[in-house]
């Protein structure tokens, strides 16, 4: 008998059909990944498996059977006994998924007690045991800490410990590593892998990241618009996709080992930073976000700046454009020291929602640099804005539309048009594609490349995703703790990393090929042991 049997599942929220006739099954001990872009309905499926839509007004059709429980027909009490005990769920954001007010050990103990009715002391001991099991050092003491005292990776471990407490037959992991840095992501995926080997529990992994899926499961199910596009063994589906959508998806996924045709960079230095330092806070709390960073950017080239959260890469980007003043050091544009902003150095922002004023039409936003420069001729302004809109792949008639009428990728294009309106020579892109789906991501990256060639722009591409950075960069700088630990031509850094941190980062990138993934896993163990 299978562990999960889903037949013809539909989930509707009002008019929106999020899941549309989905069927799949999962054998005991097997691992399946649901892969899809945002809006594909993958997370909705995960919630439906535990009956979490009950009482929310969503309409669920079809049949769902999990560990012998018919989720749709089960009584509330039966459902309660399924949740956590036979099938446990790990959520995306480990900070908000734990109660901030209680000790982590107590929260795990509470869940354990609900299902076992053992004494407080026994359940507390069990909590320490599972925390130890997921690799929390000094679990006895750390079990008394509250979630905010844990790092992101530790919190995700704690959530996994909670899932393990009752030894479930099925673990449902909904984007378990999306909020984490790549090195931490690798650790968590390795942990899940080890636990599965040891306990023999089944795994249902929900993810947008094809690489994460390839690392962790045997079978994969690709979803789009709430339907199954394709399902089968990982190697078959990802290696030789049968469906057009899967092929498109796989083509869009940036690969960390692909070389890039270099752009036509000149020797002319447009932007130069020397000894940049930036501190936040005062007195004893002073925190050095960027520490002694020097770099040069040439006309027509792309410099990739890569780093994990807290590496100071965003602070560096904001200093380069003049939104932040450095505590020490200077930024020289065209050979002249510069204070404050300069329209010739523009920025494309990460969040497509907050980077456009919702109360102004996109045309007005794009026209800002023109008007600020003193252009008064409305016709000329309109004409130039239309031209820019068309240049970034939108329609000129979109001038009077508002940001909410656009998708994330389109808004990012508007942001690029606004940057271009200032006739810049340098554009600093701060995580310009990290909020986008992978197919959209590829389109925006391609657009930036075209513009660069056409206009001879110098680009600084700040991102956490090593594969995307490789895809776009001529040179890269790897940042950690506010410093550049390694820099050089992209191919050199990626193919022959010198700094141990760069090696660690590269080893942590999920591979698309299950065999490569297994090899990387072994490499990581070696690196960790070393």
């Amino acid at each position: 008998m299978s562990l999960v049997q889903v037949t013809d599942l539909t989930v509707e929220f009002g008019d929106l059909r999020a899941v549309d006739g989905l069927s799949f099954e999962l054998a005991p001990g097997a691992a399946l990944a649901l892969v899809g872009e945002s809006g594909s309905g993958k997370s909705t499926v995960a919630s439906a498996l535990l009956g979490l839509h009950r009482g929310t007004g969503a309409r669920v059709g079809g049949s769902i059977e999990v560990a012998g429980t018919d989720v749709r027909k089960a009584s509330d009490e039966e459902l309660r006994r399924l949740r956590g005990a036979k099938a446990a769920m790990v959520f995306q954001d480990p900070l908000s998924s734990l109660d901030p007010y209680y000790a982590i050990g107590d929260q795990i103990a509470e869940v354990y007690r609900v299902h076992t009715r053992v004494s407080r002391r026994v359940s507390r001991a069990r909590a320490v045991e599972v925390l130890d099991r997921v690799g929390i050092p000094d679990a006895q003491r750390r079990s008394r800490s509250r979630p905010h005292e844990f790092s992101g990776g530790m919190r995700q471990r704690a959530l996994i410990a909670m899932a393990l407490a009752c030894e479930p037959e099925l673990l449902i992991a909904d984007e378990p590593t999306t909020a984490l840095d790549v090195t931490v992501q690798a650790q968590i995926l390795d942990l899940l892998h080890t636990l599965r080997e040891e306990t023999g529990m089944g795994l249902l992994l929900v993810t947008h990241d094809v690489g994460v899926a390839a690392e962790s499961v045997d079978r994969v199910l690709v979803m789009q618009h709430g339907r199954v596009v394709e399902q089968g063994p990982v190697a078959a589906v990802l290696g030789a996709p049968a469906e057009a959508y899967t092929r498109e998806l796989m083509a869009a996924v940036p690969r960390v080992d692909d070389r890039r045709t270099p752009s036509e960079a000149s020797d002319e230095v447009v932007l130069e930073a020397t000894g940049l330092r930036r501190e936040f806070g005062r007195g004893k709390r002073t925190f050095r976000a960027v520490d002694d960073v020097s770099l040069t950017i040439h006309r027509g080239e792309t410099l990739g700046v890569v780093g994990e959260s807290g590496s100071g890469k965003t602070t560096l980007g904001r200093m380069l454009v003049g939104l932040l003043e450095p505590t020490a050091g200077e930024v020289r544009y065209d050979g002249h020291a510069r204070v404050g902003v300069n329209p010739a150095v523009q920025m494309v922002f990460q969040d497509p929602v907050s980077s456009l004023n919702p109360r102004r039409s996109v045309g007005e936003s794009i026209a800002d640099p023109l008007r600020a420069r003193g252009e008064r001729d409305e016709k000329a302004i309109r004409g130039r804005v239309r031209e820019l809109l068309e240049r970034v792949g939108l329609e000129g008639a979109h001038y009077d539309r508002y940001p909410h009428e656009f998708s994330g990728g389109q808004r990012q294009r508007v942001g690029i048009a606004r940057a271009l309106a200032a006739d810049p020579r340098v554009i600093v892109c701060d995580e310009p594609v990290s909020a986008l789906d992978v197919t959209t991501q590829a389109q925006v990256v391609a657009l930036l490349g075209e513009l660069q060639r056409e206009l001879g722009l110098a680009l600084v591409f700040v991102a956490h995703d090593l594969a995307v950075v490789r895809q776009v960069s001529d040179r890269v700088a790897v940042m950690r703790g506010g410093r550049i630990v390694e820099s050089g031509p992209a191919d050199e850094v990626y193919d022959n990393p010198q700094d141990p941190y760069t090696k660690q980062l590269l080893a942590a990138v999920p591979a698309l090929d299950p065999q490569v993934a297994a090899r990387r896993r072994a490499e990581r163990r070696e690196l960790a042991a070393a």
Partner: protein
Amino acid sequence: MSEALVATQVPEADASGTSGARQFWRRLRAQRAALVAAAVVALLVLVALAAPLLTAIEGQDPTTYHPSLVDSARGGVPIGSFGGISGDHWLGVEPQTGRDLFARLVYGARVSLGVALAATAVQVLLGVVVGVASALGNRWVDQLLSRIADIIVAMPLMIMALALLAVVPGSFPRPVLVALIIGFVAWGTIAKITRAATLTLKELDYVSAARLSGWGTWRIARRELLPGLAAPIITYAALMVPANITIEAALSFLGVGVKPPTPSWGQMLTSANVWYQAAPQYLLLPAGALFVTVLALTVLGDGIRTALDPRAASRLRVGTGRGQEAKS
């Protein structure tokens, strides 16, 4: 193709803009309670504005004594049933003086609403100026203004208003004075809300983008920040109006607010407890008027909040009213 799907899923709440005003009305209209409240408020405002007309129709005015209508032998109880209700005096007369209650009530609405609205205007003006200055100013300006706002928030409004009323010369027109004093002692919360909202907005990428365009601070404040502040300010201001009505009534009840002969609901209640048996409407009319006005304004305020911030409101349904900014 995935982009199209994302577009359909963009949450409505982000869809503010020039269509914001229309959406606001649509969301407000969707709430039955808020609509009823809005109708009641509109009626009250109309009554207040038309007070001279209404009393002219009745043929009375709020200040003329009618000693013939009260029984001086029984301590001034109105003559006739139900406190002297008649065709001439629609709601009866005031005990002891015999002044017309209907006229006093509708003129009282004038004072009540007028003072509350004027006080709210003063509070919003002061609060927004201080809040924006504090958020955009340097560290010292911010520290100074924030501390002052803290003190203003902490000090009991009633007490400060009472105390201030003691030192202001009596020659000052009383309703204006009461409005100014309520305004000056209760702008702290709106300053704090404005400051917090401005700080949040200031960090948004579109404000950075405007800076990179080359615009100056003043233009950015006007074009990018102020429109974004409208929602929190309107929300809070709507909830301050009923609070100000209550305070004006309380001050007048204590005899330090609006002084006779200007009629005011709070003032009418002062002596009512002595007369509740002989002339119950003398108590019930101003009490009921206060209750209905404050209730309608509160429900309308909640409705406005729901219409402006549907995300928060869908969670809360009924919000917290005051103290919501307490710690953030």
